[in-house]
């Protein structure tokens, strides 16, 4: 009896593993689909996530870090937690080995709706992944002209914890994107900005006019980022963020990611601040 099984992962090969930070607990995995059919069936947009599957360990929901324009591959930046069964197992994998992916799941950043606007991207920590996907996409020649000014404010705890260092350097050299990279605390080699993301955001104070802001970060950062954004004049409907919850199925059944009457996996993870204000359990 054949029937489509939404719980079944597609096999992918680990093509490249990049260690992102000094603590070596953040790695970016570039995965290639093993069949063209799978590659073309997996159509995703910026902001969506997928379930990474390791047979014998389990599954974990991870935001997609690659751009939808990166053909045939998927990238995920995964933090290993000591208590995380799947993330630990994944970090023990080598290039060339096979894991599974199912998805894409969830909604995406509303890029269509944002066309013709200025974009402000605010992010902290390793929540930057889906925004990296977005930036890669926006900076593509086929897309850049659809949007006006792009400002990125991205922070990490320390210089060593910044993700995608090569790309950050590349973007900083471009004149069609303003990059503001900050760290909570610098070290000897750091000549850049220091300060928490909400503070730096206030210093940079991007204009809210004809602008959307995409915010993604740890709960504590979100909590302190919303008031300054509102003060700068961003309407809640134009503050777009991404929620994180424990997830098991990714398809709105298992109940774990339920916030109010929404399921983060299905109705989210992307919500406007206006939407979140209607969900008491999700109030930042």
């Amino acid at each position, binding site marked *: 009896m054949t029937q489509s099984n939404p719980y079944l992962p597609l096999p992918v090969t680990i093509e490249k593993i990049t260690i992102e930070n000094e603590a070596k607990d953040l790695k970016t995995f570039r995965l290639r689909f093993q069949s063209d059919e799978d590659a073309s069936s997996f159509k995703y947009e910026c902001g969506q996530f997928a379930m990474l599957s390791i*047979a014998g*360990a389990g599954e974990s929901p991870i935001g997609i870090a690659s751009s939808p324009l990166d053909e045939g591959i998927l990238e995920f930046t995964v933090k290993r937690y000591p208590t995380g069964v799947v993330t630990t197992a994944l970090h023990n994998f080598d290039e060339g080995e096979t894991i599974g992916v199912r998805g894409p799941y969830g909604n995406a950043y509303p890029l269509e709706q944002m066309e013709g606007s200025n974009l402000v991207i605010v992010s902290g920590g390793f929540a930057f992944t889906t925004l990296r996907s977005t930036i890669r996409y926006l900076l593509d020649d086929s897309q850049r002209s659809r949007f006006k000014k792009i400002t990125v404010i991205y922070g990490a705890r320390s210089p060593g914890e910044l993700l995608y260092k090569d790309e950050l350097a590349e973007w900083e050299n471009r004149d069609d994107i303003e990059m503001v990279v900050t760290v909570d605390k610098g070290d000897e080699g750091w000549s850049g900005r220091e300060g928490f993301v909400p503070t730096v955001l206030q210093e940079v104070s991007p204009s809210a006019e004809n602008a959307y802001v995409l915010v993604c970060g740890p709960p504590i950062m979100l909590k302190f980022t919303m008031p300054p954004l509102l003060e700068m004049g961003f309407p809640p409907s134009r503050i777009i963020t991404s929620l994180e919850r424990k997830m098991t199925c990714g398809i709105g059944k298992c109940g774990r990611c339920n916030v109010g009457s929404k399921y983060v996996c299905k109705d989210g993870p992307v919500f406007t601040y206006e939407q979140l204000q209607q969900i008491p359990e999700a109030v930042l």
Partner: protein
Amino acid sequence: MKRGKIDKADLGKLLVAVSETAQCAGPVADRVGVKLEMLSADSALELAYDNFALSPKLWFFPRSEVIASGTGDALETTLLPEGETVLFGLRPCDAAALELLDKIFLDEAYLDPYYKNRRQNTTVVALACNEPDAACFCTSVGGGPGAGAGADVIAFDLGDALLFEALTDKGKALLTQHEKLLNAPTGDDDAAKTKVIADAGAKLKPVKTDGLADKLSGLFDAPVWEVIGERCVGCGTCTYLCPTCHCFGIYDEKAGEQVQRIRTQDACMFPQFTLEASGHNPRDTQGVRARQRVMHKFSYTVDNVGETFCVGCGRCVVHCPVNIDIREILEEVAA
């Protein structure tokens, strides 16, 4: 055939006949209470029972089920079991719960093949209630002792005989298949049926639930949740016995190269349910977990699929170790 009657003395014969073409489960006495069990030739049927200790949802959504398996890193769909099953003796509340679960697992966007397979291959014969339990409140949540939602056939206990009424095509087919064993019901039978159901209904104490969903949405931060949470011990009794609770987890079991991915029942009452690997837990007190259970059943599902996910079976009321009574919570909220 749409309706038929059988003497209780001949019920065994009927179920044996059913077992010839399908596996057939029915109520059987156990050391503790009555359970729904696959019938064999020597099973002792027992028709006097409040309800099964466990909800028959577990036939469709088992406590644990292999959803993918394989060797090495490749996982494949597990073969779905085939063959017809007839479940006899579900109480109307439990049958109604199946219709609610359909809204989750048969959702077009992501159809659950395992649930669908079971649902397709199973004919549900409900048995109307003559003697509801003190904790029952089906009539307050849209059901009733003789309600047929979710069932293919409903049977009424008329004392010496059972009256069957088919409610779906699947039900009609079942009655037609066994029509030789069934008699035509009379007008007296109809009167008797109406009476037993009315009598049963009269024994149920109504719970006030007017405007519940609306009121609940305004009570998210109400102190009532922490009051419940203080008493709640955080076990999974209420959710595991509930015929509509359907939250689950997925875990892998591995031995050598053999891997099974297993879906297991899970419960929002456990702190681990929402605990993230980072250590962050968005629901970090028993009070907010208790709130989730009530909100999910009486508010969120109303928003999402237009249904209250409670059928009034009373299992959680009876078995809560600290006697947290959902009826009291609803009345307090609706007041």
